């Protein structure tokens, strides 16, 4: 009896193009690396991460750990005892605290390393003895040719056909199922054949061949070492980490919050377990595909279809290491499952990457002095595995599906983002804070966590979509090709992007730990979103990482496009048509950019007008308001640039239109900053455009807002970064809209006009809303501390002086006090103007003073760089029987900052005939 063969494999294009009616060809399944190869490394990394956390917690339960906790508290208290004032002072104090406990923390770090070392040695030992253990436990006996030479010969024939190295054949005689399994260790490969399979060699030879080839397929696919090493690490983790941890949780009182630790350890173990199983299931598909490649006429499909159906709830399938036989048989005919990945794949990648980086950073901080580089290295290490795994998965999916984005890529991105977001929450370090949900059950903690998850997911969600687009750029030739070289390039790019992103996420997570306890207070702050959005983007755009990320997102697809650029078939170049073609193509781009710049001009004018109309002069006078306004206006410019880029991504039909859209965002943002500079210059001269003055000083008209020039490049980077997050969605939306409209070619004029009108209306609405919001948001925490007189003019006895912006008059009896509002800058400064009636014969001498003119009147000018701890400048003059004392005070280190203010105010001094 012989099972029916499912028939020959679908005809395949040698180049890997899908055959008619099938989603892929068997021949092309191995054109790209298996998506699970890097996930084995990810699995091992997950176990190591978990071990770091567990050993750290175990150390905490020891007397040394308790002593370290006490030492941390003592060092912190000692360093903060002098009550340092200001951010830099606090940072210095915390640095001293860190130095105080560095030695003890290093011991903690060495303990953790020792634990990992033990785990490594135990893993190696388990890996090494596994073959012996399997032979003993399964009662395997050598399968020689003595009893059945035909069997031995057949096995060797199959081995040669599979192209593997030497294999030791074993027999599991009392297993009557038609089965076999492969195992081994470095350079030793074993295949155990069941009694049922041995019998099947005579009764069902085709089925026998299929089963044995399947096992040889595992060997050919290099599954042995990966699988059994991963299993060895898993078992070592259970024995050397989980069991001691369980004992401590039960018996020790030193471990802090047991529920918080317990659920984390359970989740960690579950992640590792499920990841292991998913990888093993995926390897079965690959081994089946290898059989089909080795034997196109294989009966494997029929054998798989005949496997007993597996029953149980679908969720329990996650505990299986084999997919169902029916699914495997179906995959032989349609290998789509070998290419696809989904939400759970992204989640696993994200969680392991984030947790690994966090654990690695913690270890680095324990062993070494905290530094930016030290913190970045773990992120790079774990992003290497994650980036490679993600790139291979998306490359394969693009190779299968081709064409444009699909919803599946977004599912991967959703999982990736959520995984990265919750990774730091699961780490054992977070439990000690007790402020983050779900350890804290306050509603505010959950709200903060939800916001965190949404934001981080938003940031990472588009990464798989981008990788898919890169794959498309590299794979597209006259026919779709694997482009392995491009995949490596993309993997490097993804690695870099994920490393930078994860490092930032871990740095920002401290905000969650800080905000969670005060969530209600924070969320009641109406300017919370603007402040955090603005300053996060502001600082992020000024990091080297941001520039590198933008470079990656432009360079990788561009390189693919260049690599795949087709030469004209005729070999002759129509040079006459080329410039016209390029001009035709660039015209929409140029128009879009111009529209963006015009929008920025309009928006800056509207914003300034709204500020002048809606915000009180005394508030606009405040330096905080001015600074906020410029920052928010810059963000508004960036927002306009991003909207323009999204419109470009949704409407342009070029190859690489989404990559071009990134450039559009950067260009429009840069031009927008120039527009802002122009607006400031104009405002210095033309009153309606001046934010501060009703009548700006004439001297300001030549003022150079060149201080905005350093903002050009960061604004371009920030716009590009935000564009990177949103452009894939815009591109996809454009495609969906086109599909729903049934458009196959270039839409008609009316349709194009309607789309442009709709896009323009959206852009106007959004930017108008923001433009109206900016003036109000800028007023947050900007409160006048005094009076600004009449457009800055303050009258005194026989004089007038004009306040410099951010200087206020504080009412005092008997003298005029002008004060610089240093609430947020921390820069104190005051100008005291006092008068005294004197005899006309009074002569004033001041040692070291020099004569200057104060609006035509001679005055004594003295500088005291360090008078009772202050930098003091004084003018003394006499006019009409009144002696005027003008005294300026500030800290010596702040004089340089306030000198221009002082100069402007003194230059504005002029005498008048009024009396106070």
């Amino acid at each position, binding site marked *: 009896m012989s099972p029916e063969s499912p028939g020959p494999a679908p005809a395949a294009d040698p180049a890997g193009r899908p055959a008619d009616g099938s989603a892929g060809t068997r021949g092309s399944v191995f054109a790209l690396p298996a998506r699970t190869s890097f996930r084995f490394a990810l699995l091992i990394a997950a176990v190591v991460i978990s071990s770091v956390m567990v050993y750290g917690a175990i150390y905490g339960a020891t007397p040394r750990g308790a002593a370290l906790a006490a030492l941390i508290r003592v060092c912190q208290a000692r360093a903060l005892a002098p009550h340092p004032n200001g951010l830099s002072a606090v940072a210095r104090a915390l640095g001293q605290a860190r130095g105080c406990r560095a030695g003890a923390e290093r011991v903690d770090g060495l303990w953790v390393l020792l634990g990992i070392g033990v785990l490594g040695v135990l893993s190696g030992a388990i890996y090494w003895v596994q073959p012996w253990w399997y032979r003993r436990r399964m009662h395997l006996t050598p399968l020689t040719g003595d009893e*059945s030479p035909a069997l031995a010969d057949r096995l060797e024939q199959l081995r040669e056909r599979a192209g593997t190295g030497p294999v030791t054949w074993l027999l599991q005689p*009392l297993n*009557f199922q*038609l089965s076999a*399994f492969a195992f081994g260790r470095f350079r030793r490969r074993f295949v155990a054949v069941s009694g049922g399979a*041995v*019998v099947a060699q005579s009764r069902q030879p085709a089925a026998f061949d299929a089963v044995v080839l399947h096992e040889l397929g595992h060997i050919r696919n290099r599954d042995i070492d990966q699988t059994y090493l991963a299993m060895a690490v898993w078992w070592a983790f259970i024995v050397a980490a989980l069991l001691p941890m369980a004992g401590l949780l039960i018996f020790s009182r030193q471990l802090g919050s047991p529920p918080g630790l317990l659920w984390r350890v359970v989740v960690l173990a579950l992640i590792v377990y499920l990841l292991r199983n998913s990888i*093993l299931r995926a390897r079965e598909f690959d081994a089946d595909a290898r059989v089909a490649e080795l034997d196109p006429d294989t009966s494997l499909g029929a054998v798989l279809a005949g*496997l007993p159906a597996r029953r149980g709830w679908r969720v329990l399938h996650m505990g299986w290491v*084999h997919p169902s036989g029916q699914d495997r048989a179906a995959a032989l005919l349609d290998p789509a499952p070998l290419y696809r990945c989904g939400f759970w794949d992204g989640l696993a990648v994200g969680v392991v990457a984030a947790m690994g980086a966090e654990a690695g950073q913690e270890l680095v901080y324990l062993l070494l002095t905290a530094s930016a580089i030290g913190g970045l290295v773990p992120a790079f290490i774990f992003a290497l595995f994650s980036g490679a795994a993600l790139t291979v998965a998306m490359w394969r999916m693009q190779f299968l599906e081709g064409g444009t984005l699909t919803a599946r890529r977004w599912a991967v991105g959703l999982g990736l983002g959520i995984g990265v977001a919750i990774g730091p929450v699961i780490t054992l370090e977070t439990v000690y804070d007790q402020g983050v949900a779900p350890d804290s059950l306050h509603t505010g903690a959950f709200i903060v966590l939800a916001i965190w998850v949404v934001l981080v997911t938003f940031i990472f969600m588009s990464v798989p979509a981008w990788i898919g687009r890169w794959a498309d750029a590299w794979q597209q030739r006259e026919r779709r090709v694997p482009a392995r070289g491009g995949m490596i390039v993309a993997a490097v790019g993804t690695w870099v992007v994920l490393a930078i992103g994860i490092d930032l996420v871990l740095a920002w997570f401290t905000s969650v730990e800080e905000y969670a306890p005060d969530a209600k207070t924070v969320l009641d702050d109406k300017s919370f979103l603007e402040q955090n959005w603005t300053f996060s983007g502001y600082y992020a755009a000024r990091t080297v990482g941001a520039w590198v990320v933008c470079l990656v997102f432009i360079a990788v697809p561009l390189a693919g496009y260049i690599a795949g650029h087709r030469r004209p078939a005729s070999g002759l170049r129509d040079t006459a048509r080329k410039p016209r073609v390029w001009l035709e193509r660039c015209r929409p781009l140029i128009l879009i950019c111009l529209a963006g710049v015009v929008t920025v001009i309009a928006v800056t004018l509207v914003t300034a007008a709204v500020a002048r109309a809606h915000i009180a002069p005394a508030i606009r006078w405040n330096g905080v308001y001015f600074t906020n306004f410029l920052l928010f206006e810059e963000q508004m410019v960036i927002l306009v640039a991003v909207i323009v880029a999204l419109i470009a991504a949704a409407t342009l039909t070029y190859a690489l239109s989404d990559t071009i859209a990134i450039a559009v965002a950067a260009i429009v943002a840069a031009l927008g900053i120039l527009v802002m500079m122009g607006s400031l210059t104009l405002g210095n001269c033309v009153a309606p455009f001046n934010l501060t003055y009703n009548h700006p000083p004439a001297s300001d008209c030549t003022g150079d807002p060149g201080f905005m020039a350093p903002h050009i490049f960061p604004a371009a980077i920030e716009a590009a970064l935000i564009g990177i997050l949103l452009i894939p969605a815009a591109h996809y939306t454009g495609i969906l809209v086109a599909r729903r409209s049934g458009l196959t070619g270039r839409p008609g004029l009316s349709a194009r006009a309607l789309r442009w009108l709709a896009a323009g209306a959206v852009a106007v609405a959004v930017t108008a809303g923001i433009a109206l919001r900016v003036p109000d948001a800028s007023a947050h925490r900007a409160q006048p501390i005094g009076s600004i007189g009449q457009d800055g003019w303050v009258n005194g006895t026989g004089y007038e002086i004009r306040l410099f912006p951010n200087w206020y008059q504080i009412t005092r009896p008997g003298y005029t006090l002008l004060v610089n509002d240093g609430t947020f800058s921390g820069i104190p400064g005051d100008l005291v103007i006092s008068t005294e009636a004197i005899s006309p014969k009074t002569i004033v001498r001041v040692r070291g003073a020099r004569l200057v003119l104060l609006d035509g009147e001679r005055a004594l000018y003295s500088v005291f760089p360090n008078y009772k701890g202050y930098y003091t400048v004084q003018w003394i003059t006499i006019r009409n029987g009144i002696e005027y004392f003008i005294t300026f005070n500030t800290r010596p280190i702040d004089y340089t900052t306030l000198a221009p203010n002082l100069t402007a105010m003194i230059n504005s001094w002029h005498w008048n005939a009024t009396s106070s």
Partner: protein
Amino acid sequence: MPDETDEIVGTLGRELVSQLVPEELPLYPSMVSQFQGAKRARGRKASSDDQLLGFGAAEALTMLTPVILSFTRSFWEALVAQAAHDSMQGVLEYVKVHLPGCHEAAAGPPLTSGQLQLVRTVAEREAHRLNISEAQAGLLADAMVGVLAAPPVS
């Protein structure tokens, strides 16, 4: 004597397996051990369910060796039980001396047709007790007769 019985059953069973289901011969030693150890300690049948890098849980193939071993044992025990009969005693002695693999060159007459007929009757009776079909029972009985009637291998 249980050891002698085990040896005889094992030897006869092997001959039957090699004739009837030679593809099960590589499994024979383990099956015999399990069969003979089953009376003292029940062994667990191995399984492939969810074995790492295994093929998966497939249906078990039907093995005839356990059936053959059960038949052989019950056949031999039936022969021993009828040892009082002169003819059967002669069969017992013949089997013990002429076991396949036994190198004693016994210069004795082969089994007579009457003895073979007796053997067949016992075999058929024992085969029917196994709840197998008539044809299979006959096959087993004929195979046993064939084994006993075959000249010793020198």
